[in-house]
């Protein structure tokens, strides 16, 4: 997912850059017909195309709802509380393959709860906001150690606000 | 004609809200005290002064260029009566009550004399500031951990806060909307060079 996002972005950025380069390479005064051809139609096609593409990608990316919270009997519920500058996690050993719902709270300022895998890839995250409990669900597929980082700047030891959870096979 | 009618209406309203029963009735609730009685006093002062604007202004123009003096006076009076302590005082202390019935109409009058003179820039800033301040006031009323006025119930304070928030948003929409239907005479200039250019310093 991470690499796909990066790759797609870079390709699209290069596409925009290519359009610039194409246009700029022809910015010199041409022969008699100085002006560009009528481009109103092209602009309209681009506009409609952008709308259709956007609608399709948007709908596709929102189904299933990417912030869905798992509920049910077999859901493992974990309470996470952030404070300057540590996490309190009420259950640090989590079974593999079961949907886990993190209930994230904070006692002071805003924090950001994020789970990183052994390869330091961010898997799932959510903000911790004073006065609220944010919920986010994730199903771990492999056993092992997972690191918890703080993703929302919360003061001068923000980067030290780390912890670990253990995902174990049942 | 309408100005004359408004003048008499204002005098009538001023007398009415000053009369004991109406005064006490409006002061029974924080909401009617702050959002009916006080604005009514200001509005009456405004309307009464507006009718005699020219007579009052004559010979005194030089003391209120751009409406600065009058505006300052009005803002000071409003600030004073925005203090919860003053509101409490006006209910419990006859001297405060008297001061309220004198200063607020005068503030309204001074605003009526000054407002037309204010530069449009000042009016714009005042309007923006008003909306901003009302949002802050609404927050203060609704989130204050204790009652701000000993003389009033907490519920009324909450209600006041909510009404002020609605008023702030309403006023914001009104001010914003009025930008879109202004009928100011269009000044057409041939030259694009700005008039009143500051030039090179």
């Amino acid at each position, binding site marked *: 997912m991470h690499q796909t996002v990066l790759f797609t972005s870079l390709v699209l950025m290069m596409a925009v850059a290519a359009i610039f380069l194409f246009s700029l390479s022809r910015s010199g005064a041409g022969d008699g017909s100085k002006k560009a051809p009528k481009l109103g139609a092209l602009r309209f096609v681009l506009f409609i195309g952008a709308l259709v593409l956007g609608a399709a990608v948007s709908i596709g990316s929102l189904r299933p709802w990417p912030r869905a919270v798992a509920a049910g009997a077999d859901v493992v519920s974990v309470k996470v509380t952030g404070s300057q500058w540590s996490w309190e996690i009420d259950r640090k050993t989590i079974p593999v393959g079961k949907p886990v719902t993190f209930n994230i709270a904070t006692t002071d300022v805003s924090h950001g709860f994020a789970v990183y895998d052994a390869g330091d890839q961010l898997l799932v995250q959510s903000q911790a906001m004073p006065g609220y409990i944010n919920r986010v669900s994730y199903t771990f597929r492999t056993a092992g150690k997972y690191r918890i980082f703080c993703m929302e700047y919360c003061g001068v030891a923000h980067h030290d606000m780390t912890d670990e959870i253990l995902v174990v096979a049942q | 004609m309408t100005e004359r009618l408004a003048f008499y209406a204002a005098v009538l309203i001023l007398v009415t809200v000053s009369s004991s029963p109406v005064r006490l009735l409006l002061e029974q609730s924080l909401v009617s005290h702050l959002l009916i009685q006080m604005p009514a006093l200001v509005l009456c002062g405004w309307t009464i002064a507006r009718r005699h604007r020219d007579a009052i202004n004559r010979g005194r123009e030089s003391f209120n260029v751009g409406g600065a003096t009058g505006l300052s006076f009005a803002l000071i009076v409003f600030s004073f009566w925005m*203090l919860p302590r003053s509101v409490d005082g006006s209910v419990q202390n006859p001297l405060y009550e008297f001061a309220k019935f004198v200063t607020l109409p005068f503030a309204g009058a001074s605003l009526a004399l000054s407002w037309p003179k204010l530069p449009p820039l000042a009016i714009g800033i005042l309007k923006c500031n008003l909306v901003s301040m009302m949002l802050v006031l609404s927050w203060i009323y609704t989130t204050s951990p204790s009652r701000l006025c000993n003389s009033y119930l907490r519920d009324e304070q909450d209600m006041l806060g909510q009404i002020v928030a609605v008023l702030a948003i309403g006023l914001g929409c009104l001010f914003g909307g009025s930008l879109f239907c202004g009928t100011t005479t269009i000044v057409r200039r041939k030259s694009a060079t700005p008039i009143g250019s500051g030039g090179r310093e």
Partner: protein
Amino acid sequence: MRRTLFATCLVLAFGAAVLWWATSGLRAFTAETARRIAVLASPEPIPDVELVDGSGRSIRLSDYTGQAVIVDFIYTQCPTICVSLGDNFGRLQERIKADGVPAKLLSISFDLAQDGPRELSEYARVHGADASIWKLARPRNAGELRLLLEAYAVIVLPDGIGGFVHNAALHVVGPDGKLTGIYDLDQHNAAFLALRSFIK
């Protein structure tokens, strides 16, 4: 222009002075804070009104001369703030006992219609009031109640559903019978420190 500048400055200077005065130097925006600042600066004498406690005995403020007292105002049917006052008084009672400070607690009911001796005793029982420290009482009549409320600047408003709204606070009365400090109901620590300050 110069006249306007002069007039505006005059108005602003006068206005600033008035606002400074009206907020006790930008410290008090509410009547309650203003009152507290005033009391701290110059303690006020309290009228020696006669009160009646749950068992019909008479209590006067002058009985406490030489001892500091914390006074609060309650009505026993109060579902919210007086319960909290009661809890804070309970906490103060423990600290007074533990510390051995020569200080007392006095809860005064302003609900003359409903709070008789029985209700007062019941409130004392519920909150665990130890009569050697914490007494409950009510004024004998409405006139004396008014006198008392005025002295403490407590405003009692009927809430329209049978109860009252009132400014709840801990009033510290010094050994000389003067009101020397008013604290928020959860500032029992500050109130206790005020009690101890009278010892030396």
